[in-house]
């Protein structure tokens, strides 16, 4: 879960990382009042959960109340990478003498936290990493250790800082690492960290938390920071799926992908693609979905006008094929069959699942007109081939 800049800055400030005076505003009026309190010049920054804000024109400077209003109005009308801007951060503009980059993340090669410092901060830090790797200084920290003050100083000194700045920036690194650990973060980053005379300020603040650790952080709610899904770039159907807790992404094709079992969602797309088909979506059922969830997954597909055929596969593991079949029946009974469904069932309770569908077919054959169900003896690739074939017919017809 990514925090807004203003949320991250509050957490940083509480951890004694220096942050410029600032205030969130949700209207031009609020921004003007905030700017007058803070004193000009101010930076006005669109608050969004996507990167590349600077390049997209989401950060401007104002020297007067009028300019503040004007800029705020412009920013609040902006969409950055398809994300609307609902608030801005009005912040004291800081004299820049030197811009550093500092960040903490998890090194997924070494499976340890890693602290990164560069004397060349600013937006192009990744270019620096690529082109001038010796300007990037890294330090692994053992998982049970804290970042000690001498380690902070070593990094600060490696980055070319001198005199009192060594301990000052070293201390900020220690505290940033403390935030990273305390909040179970995946990333805690300040880019740029601005050196301005004797002072240092976190001019930006990025904090991405581990969703799976949020249960340990009820204090975030007290800070007004609630669980959010990253709805910025989602389509309407993706938002719908997210609301149901179903991992789902719209794609460009016409085969509705209805895979079973976490992890097979991705492989099934490769399979259909390699056989010449075009998937309409990615979906992940998660482990052991209930029949109701199965039915909701099908709803998402059948409601998608691009989908001409549904390709389903269930390999019952922790999930059970009888539940899968029950879910299919809930869907069919509610919505009827409009689009062909080509499915395979095998694994846990697959015979029971087949039986449920066969019995239902005997009772209400009209629901099963466009449905083909295969069992363990037909390899998955054969079933996928059939789905691609049917989709081609449907699309052509």
């Amino acid at each position, binding site marked *: 879960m990514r925090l807004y800049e203003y949320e991250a800055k509050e957490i940083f400030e509480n951890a004694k990382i220096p942050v410029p005076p600032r205030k969130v505003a949700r209207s031009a009026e609020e921004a003007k009042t905030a700017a007058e309190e803070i004193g000009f010049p101010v930076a006005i920054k669109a608050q969004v959960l996507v*990167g590349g804000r600077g390049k997209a024109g989401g950060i401007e400077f104002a020297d007067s109340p009028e300019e503040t209003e004007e800029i705020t109005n412009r920013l609040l009308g902006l969409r950055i990478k398809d994300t609307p801007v609902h608030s801005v951060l009005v912040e004291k503009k800081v004299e820049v003498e030197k811009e550093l*980059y500092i*960040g*903490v*993340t*998890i*090194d*997924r*090669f070494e*499976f*340890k*936290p*890693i602290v*990164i410092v560069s004397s060349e901060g600013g937006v192009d*830090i*990744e270019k620096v*990493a*690529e082109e001038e790797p010796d300007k*990037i200084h*890294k330090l692994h920290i053992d*998982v*049970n250790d804290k970042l000690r003050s001498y380690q902070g100083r070593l990094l600060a000194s490696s980055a070319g800082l001198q005199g009192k700045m060594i301990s000052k920036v070293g201390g900020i690194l220690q505290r940033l690492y403390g935030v990273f*650990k305390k909040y179970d973060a*995946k*990333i805690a*980053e300040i*880019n740029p960290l601005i050196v301005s005379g004797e002072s240092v300020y976190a001019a930006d603040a990025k904090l*991405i938390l*581990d969703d*799976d*650790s949020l249960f*340990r952080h009820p204090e975030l709610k007290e800070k007004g920071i609630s669980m959010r899904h990253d709805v910025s*770039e989602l389509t309407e159907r993706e938002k719908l799926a997210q609301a149901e807790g179903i991992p789902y*992404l719209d794609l460009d094709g016409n085969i509705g992908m209805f895979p*079973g*079992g*976490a*992890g*097979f969602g*991705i*492989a099934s*797309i*490769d*399979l259909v*693609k*390699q056989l010449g088909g075009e*998937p309409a979506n*990615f979906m992940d059922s998660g*482990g052991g979905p209930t029949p109701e969830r199965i039915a909701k997954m099908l709803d998402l597909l059948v409601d998608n006008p691009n989908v001409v055929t549904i390709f389903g596969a269930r*390999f019952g*593991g*922790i999930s059970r094929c009888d539940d899968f079949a029950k879910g299919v029946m809930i869907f069919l009974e509610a919505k009827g069959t409009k689009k062909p469904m080509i499915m395979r069932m*095998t*694994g*846990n309770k*697959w015979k029971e699942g087949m039986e449920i569908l066969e019995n239902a077919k005997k009772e209400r054959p009209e629901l099963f007109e466009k449905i083909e169900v295969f069992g*363990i003896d037909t*390899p*998955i*690739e054969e079933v996928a081939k059939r789905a691609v074939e049917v989709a081609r017919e449907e699309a052509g017809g």
Partner: protein
Amino acid sequence: MAIIVDDKSRVLVQGITGGAGKFHTKNMIEYGTNIVGGVTPGKGGQEVEGVPVYDTVHGCVMGENPDVSVVFVPARFAADAVMECLDEGLKRIILVPERIPIHDMLEVRHKAGKAGATVVGGNSPGVVSPGKANVGIMPPIAFSEGRVGTVARSGAITYYLADTLTHSGYGETTCVGLGGDPILGSNFEDILRLFDNDPETEAMVMAGEIGGLYEEIASQHMSEIKKPVIAFIAGLYAPPGKRMGHAGAIVEKGMGTAESKVKALSDAGVPIAKKFSDIPKLLEERIGKA
């Protein structure tokens, strides 16, 4: 022989009194797995499917001498469950719970590494040594005794690999569900090394997927593996995922995509199966007909 679990394994179930713990204990026993005890704090003295329940792993170790544990506790308690086993000297632990906090898993890896233990998962479907033991949540239907070891990040792909190997006649020595969580207890190469030392395993299939760096890491260790390895990578056609901050990018520099994984493994001499049906063909070239 087999790896991690076999017919001599004495299996402990942590979280045995919960819904999933009970259900799968029954299935595992039905398969013939030797489940010797369970642990649920505060429920010591009960029985589940005839298996004695203890309050602590220590108690179970004293009473039943298990050598493998399979963990069904909620994700937030998973790290503790592993560490409790490590303290009691268990060297093989399979983590079924998914979405275990990543900082917890860093600690688990650290401690397991010092103990020389193999931790599989989180979000592992389990480990199956066909005909010997089924530890975890995988349905036995797809598996058959044979010559090839598999290790896959996803449960469903583990089934399809076994399905493919079973139908093509190779069969499996052991199928390991490495797990789907972001920070896992074991890497591919850890499991491949175990297969390399297993006399019955003639070749290995590893199945990776987009995201994470496990396949790239594995590619750096391929020279240490003596037996043939075939790789399958899911996500060649997946939409590009979102990037996460500069810090990750600085360290990882464009890795984590399916292309990066295919390239890393190919460069390390590992043949890539694009479809499940490629696997028997690639095996035939290496270890002969099924």
